[in-house]
């Protein structure tokens, strides 16, 4: 998928984009549907997301980037912008006050490909209660305090489940938990 997206960015390849589109359009439509609960709006937001994928494909880093995560951030940003109609506060990597990442080790690209497989594996190993929480956060877009009240759980329990889940996912990726 990363190679296809790179081809879209490099050559504006319609064939490559069709494969990307057919894989992601249904997933993004279903993501949007969960959040906006209106088929027409979900369709429009999906189209807008895929249009942005087409336009920005050249900015995708095929070496280190992850296609699903990249498309997710585009979909999420369009979704929140459409809903709030206020400006979205984001950091800007071109801002002179921005503190850049430390130098990446040479094998970062290899690790990015490995990471995806390891993450999927680690997610399968999460207890159901932690997985459910991730679904609620990303697909219902509810805050951790709203999750607590929906599940009638103490806030502290929700916080510790979030920390446990990401602690495990980070260590599966070889990061500091």
């Amino acid at each position, binding site marked *: 998928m990363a190679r296809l997206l790179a081809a879209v960015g490099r050559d504006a390849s319609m064939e490559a984009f069709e494969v990307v589109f057919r894989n992601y359009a249904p997933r993004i439509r279903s993501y949007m549907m969960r959040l906006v609960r209106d088929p027409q709006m979900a369709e429009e937001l999906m189209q807008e997301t895929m249009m942005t994928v087409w336009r920005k494909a050249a900015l995708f880093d095929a070496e280190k980037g992850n296609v699903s995560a990249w498309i997710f951030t585009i979909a999420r940003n369009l979704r929140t912008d459409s809903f709030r109609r206020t400006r979205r506060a984001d950091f800007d990597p071109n801002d002179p006050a921005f503190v850049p990442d430390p130098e990446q080790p040479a094998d970062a690209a290899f690790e990015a490909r490995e990471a995806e497989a390891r993450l999927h594996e680690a997610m399968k190993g999460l207890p159901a209660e932690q997985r459910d929480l991730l679904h609620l956060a990303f697909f219902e877009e509810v*805050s951790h305090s709203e999750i607590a009240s929906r599940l009638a759980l103490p806030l502290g329990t929700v916080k510790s489940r979030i920390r446990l889940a990401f602690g495990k996912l980070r260590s599966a990726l070889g990061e500091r938990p």
Partner: protein
Amino acid sequence: MSVRHQVSDELLLDYASGSLSEGWRIAVASHLALCPQSRRRLAVMELTAGALIEEEQPESSTADDDDAWSAMRTRLAAGGGALSGGVDTPRPVSRDAIVLPEPLRSYAGGDVGSLKWRPLGRGAYHILIPTADKSTSVRLLRIPAGKPVPEHGHGGRELTLVLSGSFNDGGEVFARGDLEEADETLEHQPVATPGEDCICLAVTDAPLKFRSWLVRLVQPVLGI
């Protein structure tokens, strides 16, 4: 120097999922601008969301997908020009000279030197940052070296991001980029470290209209 007090997983998850409202978002985004380690943790969360999207079993039919693709083709044919590759050239400004990172600097309307600070008493100053988010109150505080941070709307959640100088809270030192998360259960009294004024961003739950006078009435009684 690396940031020691990073954003918590639960707050970062709210940012990653898009559920955080504007006021809190300014504090978390500005912290992220100063803290590569927190951005790395954000990347893991976005990777997780991407993996969840991969696992989705969409219910759409092949006909739906064909329709969607032909709609997209029509749009592309109508001129959806792709962006050319290449990275933006960084602006030639020294990193150390700027106190407020983006997005905060745009919200404030400039860097600390060009802003109109309003006196809070006891040598402290503040600036209210306007947002469209009525549920929070966002302000910059400038605390004289060695002095306590004045009361600025407690009772709920509070995020404090240090931008310049440092403060000490219960023996822990918070310096540039550090984010302190407090709620009503945490009793805290930050004090600016001697030697340098401390500039920080404070985001709190917006005080309710009726509460402002009510609290002022009962505050001395309850000692809050």
